[in-house]
């Protein structure tokens, strides 16, 4: 886990990591969220709707934005204060995602940083993007 302190952070600082989506993750997300919409649970239904397989929950793939800030940027001293996500392409089981974030703004008075982040799949297509506000609690 990274542990950037507020003084270490600068505009343009970036971090990235990779994450594969598994069927097991889908099962766990269903158990936690109770979202049993067939688009996520039934391959045949998803195919009827024009997708090649069931669609991964948007909030499952975007949960890695939490990992981005909580583990990588800034890491240990993070407190997530806001996130605005836009989805652009579906994610499927076995997709290999890359989660990327870069510091875009620093509020010195309140020790808050803003991170522009996005997730790409194995074809380097952007599946979502996010603006994330994070407090840095290093004192």
């Amino acid at each position, binding site marked *: 886990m990274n542990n950037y302190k507020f003084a270490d952070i600068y505009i343009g600082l970036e971090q990235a990591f990779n994450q594969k989506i598994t069927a097991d993750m889908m099962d766990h997300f269903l158990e936690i969220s109770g979202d049993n919409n067939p688009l996520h649970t039934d391959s045949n239904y998803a195919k009827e709707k024009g997708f090649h397989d069931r669609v991964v929950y948007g909030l499952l793939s975007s949960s890695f934005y939490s990992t981005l800030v909580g583990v990588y940027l800034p890491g240990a001293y993070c407190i997530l*204060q806001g996130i605005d996500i836009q989805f652009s392409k579906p994610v499927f089981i076995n997709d290999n995602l890359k989660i990327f974030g870069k510091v875009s703004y620093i*509020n010195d*008075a*309140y020790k*808050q940083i803003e991170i522009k982040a996005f997730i790409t799949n194995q074809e380097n297509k952007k599946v979502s993007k996010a603006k994330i*506000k994070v*407090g840095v609690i290093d004192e």
Partner: protein
Amino acid sequence: MTREEIFNGVQDIFRDIFDEDDLVLQDSTNADDIEEWDSLNHINLVSAIEKEFKIRFALGELTALKDVGAMIDMMVRKLK
């Protein structure tokens, strides 16, 4: 930039952050007057104002402010 222009710009930011299109600010408006003006929204306000007006605030400057009018007055000085 005139005080009125700054005031109107700040009012637009308040309307956006508190999601109230008809919110009308007064110089005397403070956190007691807007229910959702909590600590996180306060940070959101300051960040939005810094970015929109391309100015920076120090924590000491902000803690001394008692209402919107005081904030606008400080912005007028910074934007001179």
